[in-house]
């Protein structure tokens, strides 16, 4: 009796089934059904909402251009832009020392790990939550919004800084250190020139991000156009809401373009 060759028995006439993948899709499907029922999201609710949505959309159009509303919006937008600029400026400035502290190739691990944990903490919270906290602490207004966005900027930019420092060429730094320079001098003459090239990129990106966030912090009292937007929704001023939305979208689109151009310029 001949022993079946290995090739014979290992030649199934269908492609091998990836059970992990099938299981994964099945699990996703089951989960979706389960979650939808838990949240009580049914077709009925969605269908009920659609005529409502149509009514809503019709009330949004045409957008509201009344003079006193426009002035309200103008003030709000100026405040939002201002918040974004100041938050980016100070946030990036403060990210310099924090990023240096978090760089594992410059600092002893105890320091860098603490700094990194702190940065992770800063990044964990949505800017809105941070804004609420500042509003409760120091009161309504742009200052709360600025501080909230500084926290967010710190969390993001200092991490990027730290990574840029860790990726840099150590030889330059050693050369400066070999001259007997103090730590600060080493920093300024050896580290910063290498890192600064990417600095502009981070800043531009963060400005764009802060512009988006600054339009929202007003919803919780942090100043800017968000407050006007929220009020418009509460008062069913949907046409004004559309005006504000369109302006915000326009602003963000411009900001994206400008930010990309700045990054290209400094590359």
């Amino acid at each position: 009796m001949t022993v079946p060759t290995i090739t014979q028995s290992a030649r199934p006439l269908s492609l091998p089934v990836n059970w992990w993948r099938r299981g994964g899709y099945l699990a996703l499907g089951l989960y979706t059904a389960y979650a939808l029922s838990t949240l009580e999201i049914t077709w009925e609710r969605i269908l009920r909402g659609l005529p409502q949505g149509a009514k809503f959309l019709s009330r949004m159009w045409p957008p509201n251009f009344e003079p006193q509303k426009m002035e309200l919006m103008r003030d709000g937008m100026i405040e939002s832009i201002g918040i974004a600029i100041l938050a980016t400026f100070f946030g990036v400035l403060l990210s310099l020392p924090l990023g240096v502290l978090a760089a594992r190739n410059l600092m002893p691990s105890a320091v860098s790990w603490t700094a990194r944990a702190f940065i992770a903490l800063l990044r964990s919270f949505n800017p809105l939550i941070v804004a609420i906290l500042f509003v409760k602490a120091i009161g309504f207004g742009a200052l709360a919004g600025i501080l909230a966005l500084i926290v967010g900027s710190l969390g993001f930019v200092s991490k990027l800084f730290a990574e840029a420092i860790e990726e840099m060429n150590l030889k330059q730094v050693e050369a400066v250190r070999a001259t007997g320079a103090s730590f600060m001098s080493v920093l300024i003459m050896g580290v910063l020139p290498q890192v600064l090239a990417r600095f502009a990129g981070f800043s531009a990106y963060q400005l764009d991000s802060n512009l988006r966030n600054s339009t929202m912090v007003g919803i919780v009292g942090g100043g800017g156009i968000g407050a006007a937007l929220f009020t418009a929704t509460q008062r069913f001023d949907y046409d004004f809401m559309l005006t504000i939305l369109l302006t915000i979208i326009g602003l963000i689109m411009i900001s994206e373009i400008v930010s990309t151009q700045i990054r290209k310029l400094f590359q």
Partner: protein
Amino acid sequence: MSTAPVSAGLAREWSRFTLAERLGRYAVYLLTIAAVVWAARSIEVIPEFLADAPAQTADLFRRMWPLDVAAYPKSIHDALIETLHIATLGTLLSLVFAVPVSLLAARNITKSRLLNLLATFILVSSRSVSSIIWALLFVAIFGPGALAGVLAIGVRSIGFVGKLLAEAIEETPTGPIEALTATGAPAASILAKGYWPSVEPSFWGVALFRWDINIRESAVLGLVGAGGIGVALDTALNTIDWPQVGMILAVIFAVVIATEIVTSSIRSRII
């Protein structure tokens, strides 16, 4: 962004930065300073408040301690689960809709420039409006609750996922596509066997990445009534229950860390 050593950069600097670029950079520096000055002047910041801020903030945190751990099973746990559902369902929703839009936006698949533009416009608009504003919109249409939250997250994420997917599609190597075309395969089969294998790792990577971000974003949607832990936070804030606020923040922090750990371990296993 270039990571070339500085010495190489300096050696080439004279030919690298044209006059136009130099001027452009100076313009940016000047504009930055002008912008900061303008902003500082147009925003009303009362100096006393600024000086007071650190003390006030510290005081706030002091009031949150000790954390109201007992509140967790009562009011926080269910809201947390709801947040996770909102984030996950929203992400799944965005995947479903991002696929067709990204196919339209990918220039190697859709040849009509008009459709490319339309699809890109949809993706950009979805991204430009933050999820909380979408949430405001959907709460107005469908009423408060998780449905508005899921839609807000879903619609916002379409732009993010769709853009990265379109890029992945455009990066598919052309050789195999040509070979499959030469076998007489219909377009749907070419998508299945030519494009999808190349796009698939990016697809799941982007989905995971967006899910992570969406969990953070879902946490605050409740502030405008779209369900989830934001509602609990809103209530705690309104009743000025600081220990509970602190507990909720701690829970959010823990979830964010857990999600990061989960996504990075999944990512290292898949990719």
